């Protein structure tokens, strides 16, 4: 929960900052050093979080691709309709998100106001990644009659409880039985 709260707090700060600064950024300049500092902080926060989110989104896109091909293979018209409207948007947004993230992470902090302003605008448009579009697709699949769409749904990132990785680590930490109680010699 701690990480969840922190993430939410940092996201709400990011949104508030973006609401204040985006109109100024559109003009390519900042009114004061304070605005410039806030813009830099927003970009920095985004660059810290975007690689993780982008990687997670990338895997969702891969899984959606599999579900999309399955729907086409099985010629399920209703499911295909959901994918037609949502899947292409998800791919496009993911591609832009990766591009923005790549640019933001590779740009030095001392970049010009114009660059910062452009990055701020991009961030304000794509900071949520594929999540809103993915959510729309899931709503569409969930709304299909006879629960037909459920088999094609992929959970939204960050909502599932993941235990396997740590469980595997904890199991690997077990002390091995060195002697499997053989006859030799009295073990």
């Amino acid at each position, binding site marked *: *929960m*701690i*990480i*969840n709260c922190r993430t939410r707090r940092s996201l709400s700060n990011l949104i508030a900052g973006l609401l204040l600064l985006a109109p100024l950024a559109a003009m390519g300049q900042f009114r004061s050093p304070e605005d410039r500092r806030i813009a830099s902080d927003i970009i920095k926060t985004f660059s810290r979080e975007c*690689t*993780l989110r*982008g*990687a*997670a989104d*990338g*895997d*969702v896109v*891969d*899984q959606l691709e*599999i579900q999309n091909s*399955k729907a086409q293979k099985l010629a399920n018209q209703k499911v295909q309709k959901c994918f037609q409207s949502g899947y292409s948007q998800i791919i496009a947004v993911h591609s832009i998100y*990766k591009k923005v*993230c*790549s640019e933001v*992470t590779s740009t030095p902090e001392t970049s010009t106001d114009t660059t910062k302003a452009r990055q701020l605008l991009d961030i304000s448009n794509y900071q949520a990644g594929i999540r809103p579009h993915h959510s729309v697709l899931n709503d569409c699949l969930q709304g299909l009659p006879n*629960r037909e769409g*459920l088999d094609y749904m992929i*959970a939204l*990132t*960050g*909502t*599932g*409880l*993941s*235990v*396997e*990785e*740590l*469980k*595997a*680590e*904890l*199991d690997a*930490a*077990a*002390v091995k*039985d*060195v*002697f*499997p*109680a*053989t*006859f*030799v*010699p*009295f*073990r």
Partner: protein
Amino acid sequence: MKRFIGWSGILLFSQFAGANAPSLIGPYLKTDIGVNTKYQYNVYHDFYRAIGDATVSVNPEFTGQTRPSAFYVKGRLKGIYEKFASQTIQDHFDIDGDLKLLINENEEWSGALFGSGKLFSDPSPNERYGRIARMNANGGLRLSKVTGKGRSLDFEGSYALESFNDPNQTGVYSNMLNNQNLEALAQYNNAFLPETNWFLRAKGGMKNYATTTFNNPSYSESLTAKRNSYYGLIESGFVGRLTERSTVDCAVGWLYRQYAASTLDQGTLFAEPVFYMRFVEQVTRRDQLLAGYNYIVSDSYWSDYVLDQEIYLGLGRVMGDQVLVMGRFSYVYKSFSKPIRRDDERITSSIGIRYSINPQLKVTGDFKIDLYSSDAYNTDPSALTNPNGTIVTAPDRPVSYKAGSIGIGIVATY
């Protein structure tokens, strides 16, 4: 874009959690190379002489798969070379691999042909005995059929082979524990919740030893025997998510295990309930608690069967994003059946740290304790001397021991 997934990322994003996640993506080959150094206390697991030694080990591991399609292959190959600084009789090289051919995955009918092999050795019990070379191999076929929404049937048949080569024995005695195991399984699964399955499983098999009765003058019993057995198990349980924050894997069943009669007695029989349960609780996004209790019966090399009762508790905590700290504790009570009764207790504890420098590089640290208490004694004569020059007590050396290790390592992933 650089992809960095720290430990908290693993917890936050379920896509990275499942070991099967990459299978959805495509062909891949992953290589892990680990180098570890540690100090081992009591390398011979001896009650009287706790001889310690430093070791260095190299552990390469390769996992991979071809592109998922109607037929595709998954495999893993793992090796370990461990070198001891002074007790070189314990140097060893183990290799372990498995291969699986998946057919029609996620279709109405699906199957898998699988096989695995392991070449390894058990530790030498003293400075002169030598390690006991072993080989395990198994193979089989698994078929699955989707019978309805969330319901499926699994069938599996497998054959396993175990081979021993005791360096201090000759003839049949060197391979006295060689055995083969034939097993069949049928399982019905019902996903009554999206991530939770109820299952009913029936399992049966037979285990045959190459040498069932022999005279072995090396041991206190003038006549020892390894007896063939057959068994049947029917059990039912749940596996999957219990609540939003916890998962469960548990089953309770009835086991019937019968050993063949021999000159020793009419053969032992185990016909009682068995069960296991295991809970994983995600206390917070950064803390995980693991708890379990096993009450299981399996074939034993020592006697006919062994009843294992194990309680274990584990705790994992992610600190920051890059450090994972773990602790695990277990208590085991082993009760060996007739004809050679024996009761053992074992307490183990471990603490581990994993520091993820970047996705390709991790530093590890481990501290392990292993305390074993047994009512079995080795009555073999011993000509070994203690480090202080005195003769090792013999006969009646207890099998019990106290051992441990502390070490650090590095794991690189490509």
